[in-house]
C-alpha cells in the first residue's frame, strides 16, 4: 500500500513523499519502514503517529491497515 | 534581622543612625518586602514606623495639609477634603498598585524608594510639596524634588527619616492632575507620566508646575513647559509648545518598559492631557 511521509521523515526516504510498503498493521508497517530506511530511526525515537483514513493513532501498534486506506506517517504531537 | 516598632520619630531616627548593618524603614513594605524576597536587600534592622502617631495623621491647618509618612493610599482615598483640594495627588497615590497595595503603600515610601517611575512623586513636585525630614540631631523641611537623587538613591543622611509631606494651602482657582501611561489598565509601573498643577486668574493660567516621571534618573520638573502655558487659555498652540518642552526635557533610557523614543513622545502627550484636566478642575473653560 501507499504510505505518505510528512515532515522530516522524507529526508530519510531519499526525499520521497510516498513509499510503497505492504503491511497489515501499524506495527508491521513501522518495522518494514525501518528495514528499508534505517535513517528513520532517529525520527521514530522522537515519536511517531499514523493516520489511517484521517484518524490519528499514537499508541495502537496492533491497529489494522485496511486495504486501500489512506495512510500518513506523522510526527507524534505534543499538546498543552 | 531585628524588627523594631518605636512610637516616636526621634526614636526611629536614632535606631537607624546607630545601626551598623543595613537598616530600613518599614512603612507599607510594598517595596521593601519585594526587595527582601528577591534578595536585593538583606536588612539587619527594620524599623516599623506605623506605631508612631505623628506619622499616621492627615491634618489640614491654615498653612496647608500635612500627610504622615505611614498613611496608606486607601486612607488618602477616604479623605474627602484632601481629594477635593489635591485630586491629582490622591489619584497619583491611588494609581500605585492594586487595592491590596493601596491598603499598605504610602506616598513617603514611594518617594524614598526613589524610583524614577514613582507615581506620587511628579504629582507632589508639581504641587510644590515639601518633605519634613527628621534626623537624630535636627529636623529640616525640603522640597520633595530634593529627596531623590537618582534611581534608588536619596539625599537623606543616615538616620534621617521623612516624617510627613506638607502640601501648600489651596486658595483661589486651582487644579492639579496626574496621568501615567501603562500598557495594562492596572498593576503596572509607569512607562512615562506627567503631573500638572496650575492656578487661574481671569481665565488665564497664572502659575503652573509641570513634572514628568520615568523620563530621567529622577522626576523632572520642566520649567519651560510651565512657562509655555502661563498666561494662556490653554489653547492648542501653547499646549503644543508645552509638549515640545516636555519632550525636550526627557533623558530617558530604553528598558523592558519602554523605549527612549516612546517615552520622549508620550511625555508631551500626557502633559497636555493632564494640563487640560487640571485646567478644568481649576474652573477653566
Amino acid at each position, binding site marked *: 500500500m501507499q504510505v505518505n511521509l510528512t515532515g522530516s521523515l522524507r529526508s530519510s526516504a531519499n*526525499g520521497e513523499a510516498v513509499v510503497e510498503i505492504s503491511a497489515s498493521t501499524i506495527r508491521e508497517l513501522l518495522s518494514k519502514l525501518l528495514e528499508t530506511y534505517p535513517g528513520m530511526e532517529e525520527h521514530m525515537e522522537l515519536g511517531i503517529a499514523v493516520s489511517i483514513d484521517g484518524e490519528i493513532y499514537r499508541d495502537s501498534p496492533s491497529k489494522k491497515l485496511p486495504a486501500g486506506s489512506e495512510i500518513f506517517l*506523522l510526527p507524534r504531537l*505534543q*499538546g498543552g | 534581622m531585628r524588627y523594631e516598632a518605636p512610637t516616636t520619630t526621634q526614636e526611629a531616627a536614632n535606631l537607624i543612625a546607630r545601626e551598623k548593618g543595613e537598616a530600613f524603614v518599614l512603612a507599607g513594605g510594598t517595596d521593601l518586602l519585594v526587595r527582601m524576597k528577591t534578595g536585593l536587600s538583606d536588612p539587619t534592622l527594620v524599623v516599623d514606623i506605623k506605631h508612631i502617631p505623628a506619622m499616621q495623621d492627615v491634618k489640614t491647618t491654615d498653612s496647608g495639609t500635612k500627610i504622615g509618612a505611614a498613611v496608606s493610599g486607601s486612607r488618602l482615598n477616604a479623605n474627602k477634603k484632601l481629594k477635593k483640594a489635591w485630586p491629582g495627588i490622591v489619584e497619583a497615590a491611588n494609581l500605585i498598585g492594586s487595592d491590596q497595595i493601596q491598603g499598605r503603600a504610602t506616598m513617603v515610601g514611594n518617594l524614598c524608594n526613589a524610583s524614577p517611575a514613582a507615581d506620587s512623586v511628579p504629582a507632589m513636585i508639581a504641587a510644590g510639596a515639601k518633605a519634613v525630614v527628621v534626623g537624630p540631631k535636627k529636623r529640616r523641611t525640603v522640597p520633595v524634588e530634593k529627596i531623590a537623587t537618582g534611581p534608588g538613591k536619596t539625599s537623606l543622611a543616615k538616620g534621617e527619616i521623612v516624617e510627613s509631606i506638607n502640601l501648600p494651602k489651596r486658595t483661589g482657582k486651582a487644579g492639579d492632575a496626574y496621568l501615567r501611561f501603562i*500598557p495594562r*489598565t492596572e*498593576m503596572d509601573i509607569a512607562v512615562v507620566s506627567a503631573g500638572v498643577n496650575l492656578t487661574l486668574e481671569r481665565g488665564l493660567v497664572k502659575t503652573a508646575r509641570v513634572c514628568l516621571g520615568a523620563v530621567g534618573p529622577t522626576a523632572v520638573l520642566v520649567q519651560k513647559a510651565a512657562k509655555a502655558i502661563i498666561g494662556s487659555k490653554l489653547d492648542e498652540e501653547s499646549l503644543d509648545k508645552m509638549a515640545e518642552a516636555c519632550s525636550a526635557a526627557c533623558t530617558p533610557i530604553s528598558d523592558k518598559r519602554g523605549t527612549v523614543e516612546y517615552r520622549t513622545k508620550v511625555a508631551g502627550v500626557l502633559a497636555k492631557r493632564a494640563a487640560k484636566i487640571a485646567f478644568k478642575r481649576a474652573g477653566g473653560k
Partner: protein
Amino acid sequence: MTHDQSFTNQKFKLVGSRVNRPDGVDKVTGRAKYGADASAPGQLVALFLRSPHAHAKIKKLDTSKAEKLAGVKAVITSADLPDHTAGAQLDVLENCMARDRVLYDGHAVAAVAAIDKETAKKALKLIKVSYGKLPHVTDVDEAMRPGAPLVREDIFTRGVDPKPTEPSNVCKVSTFGHGDIEAGFDEADVIIEKSFKTEQTHQGYIEPHACLASVGPDGNGELWVTTQGHYTYRTVCAALLGMDMAKLKVTSSEIGGGFGGKTHVWIEPIALALSRKANRPVKAVMTRDEVFKASGPTCSTSMDIKIGAKKDGTITAGSAHIRYQDGAFRGQWGQLGAMTAFACYDLKNVQSVGYDVLVNRPKVAAYRAPSAPMAAFGVESTMDLVAEAIEMDPVTLRIKNAAKEGTRASYGPTYGPIGIGPTLEAAKNHPHMRAKLKKNQGRGMACGFWFNFGGQTCTDINISADGTVNLTLGTVDVGGSRASMSLICAEELGIPYDQVKANIADTSSLGHNDTTEGSRGTFSSGMATIFAAREAIEEMKERAAQTWDIPVEEVEWVEGEARAIGQKNDNLPPLTLKDIAARAAATGGPIAGHNEVVADGAGVSFASHICDVEVDPETGGTRIIRYTVIQDAGKAINPDYVEGQFQGGAAQGIGWALNEEYIYGDDGRLQNAGFLDYRIPVCSDLPFIDTEILEIPNPNHPYGIRGVGETSIVPPLAAIGNAVSNAAGVRMTHVPMSPPRILKAIEEAEA
C-alpha cells in the same frame, strides 16, 4: 452566550446540563490542597542554585562548605545524578540540573535540602561556582545565521539530505504540504508575502511548581506534586533516578493551572534525589522568578508567509517558512507549527516548512495548542491582506476556502466531518459583526485549528452498598473534568449526578493514564468512563438475573434500573441500582466496572474569533472593546466549563497579542521574570467574552466529544492583529503589539 444544539444528534438526560462541580466547596473555602499545601513530619526545605549566565562552562563547583553547615541534610549536583548522556532522558535530566555547561539564565547547578528556609538560603550562598562564560544567542533568527554561537556541539540538523557534517543550532527541518506551489502562485492574480515575528510567552499558571518528595533507603518513594500527568512524572522520575516504577507512588495535588507547562518535570526529580540522599521528606516550591526562568515557556518565532489568490477569492497556493526556537534543548515545536499553519483551509497547493532552532533560553514546553497560535498569526494576518487586495470581505474569503469533510489537510490526512465552515458562517451572522465602530476602533477576525488528542486511559467505577458510585479517574482534573466525568457516568448508569463521586487516583491505585494534554481529558476519560459504566451495567444485569432467577438475556438496563423483559416476567418489579447494590454481598460480592483503552479518533477542532479594539493613536495603547468566541466543541458535556475554556483561551491570547513577552538583555539574562513586568491581562483589561458553542459531533466518540481546551488560544493573536491594524491603519507584524510597537508603526506609516 448561546449554546447551539442544532448539530447534536443524540439526546441526553444529564450530559449538556450546567452542574456545580464536586470540588467547588473545597475550592471556595481554602480547603483544597495544591502542590505547596502538603507537609510531612520532619520535612526539609529544598532550594536551588541557578546560573546567572546565559551560556557558560562550569569550571568548578564546590559544595563542601554548604554540606558542612549545620542543618543542611543533602546537597545535589549533577555529579550525584545518574549519567544519562547516552540515553533518551539526557535532555530531561540535564535541564533539571546542568552537567558541565549552563545553557540559559536560571539553569539549575545545585540544590540543597535543609531543616528550614533560612538554613537552605545560607547554604546556597556557601556553594562556590566558577563559570567560564561562553558566547550566547537568544534570538531565533540570529541563532540560524552562519557563525552564530553554538548552543550545543552535538546537534546536527535532521530532516535534510544529505546528512550534515557540521553541528548547527537548527535541530530539525520539517516539510508538509501537497500540490505544486510554484504552479499555484503562477495562477494567482494577487500574491501577498509578509514576514512576522512573535515573542516568547509563558503559560502563566498562578500556582508555581511544587512538590513533596519522600524516598526511603528501601527504594520506596512517594511524590505529591502539582502536575498535568502524574503517571508521566512517575515514568520519567523513575527512569532518571533508577527507581522501580511500582515503588514510586505519585499523587497529583489539585493543580493551580498548567496549560501545558506542567506536562514536564522540572524540580521534581531533584526533590526526589535530595530526599533519597537525606532520607527525609523534602518539599520544593519554585519562586515565581524561577517559574519564569526555569520552567517551560513557549517559543518565540519568526516566519515568512506567502499566499496567492485569484480575484474571485480562490486561494491558488500558500507557503510558510516558520522558525521556532525550542530553548536550549531539542524540540519539535517548529514542526508542529508547520503542521497547523494552513490547517483551516482547503488548498490545492500548499507547503509549510518548519525549522526547530536552539537558543540560550529555557527548554520550551507545551503551551495550549502549542505552536499553533504563532503560525495562525502569520497566516491569518496574510489572509486579511489578501482579502484587502482583492477587495473581498475577510470572512467571505475564509468561507470560500474553508476546509470541509473530505479536504486533504495541509499536514496530510483527509478530514472527516469538521467545524470550520459552520464557525465561519456563525461568525458572519453574529450580531457582533454588524455592531457600529467608533473613532479609533477596529474589528478583526481570525480562525484557528487544533488536533485534539486521545491516548492511554484507565478508569474504574465502584458501586457502594448504598448505591452511590465512586468514579476513579487517572487524568488530572485541570479545569472541572470531575464534574464532566460524573455527568457521563451518571448518564450511562441512569442515576442522578450527585450519586456519583469522582476522584483522581494516585499512580498506585489505577493503571497508566497519559498526561492531561492536547485537550484529551474529557475525550479519553469520557470514553473510558462510558465503557467502564457499561461493564458495571452488565454486571448489575447479571446480579438482577440471579435475583430473579432468569437468564441474563431477559434483563435490560433502562433509566438506572434493571428490568425483566417479556410477558412471563411481568410479575418482576424493576430492580434499581440501589436495590442491586444493597444485595451485592449476597449476589457475588462487589460490583465494579473497569476500562482501559487507547482512546483513538480524537476529532479536530476549529474556532473563529471576532474582536473589536480601540487604539489610542497618540500612545499606542490598546483596549479590547468586545470579543466573541465561536468554536466547535463536539458534544459539550458541561457548557459552563466549555465556555470557561473558550474565555480563558481567548484571555491568554489577548495577553499574548498585546503585552506578554520574555525580554532578554544583551547579556542573555531574562529581565522581566515576574508578574509585574510580564503583563498578563488583569480583570479591568477585559470585557465580558461572548461565546457560542457549536456541537458538531465527533463520530469516533460514543457521545460525540472532541475536546475543547486548546483551540481557543489559536485565533486571538491574528484576530487582534487584524483589529489593531484596522484601527491604527497600519499592518502589525510583531507580537506582542505593545504600545511602543504600535506607536512606532503608526509613526513610520505617517512618515
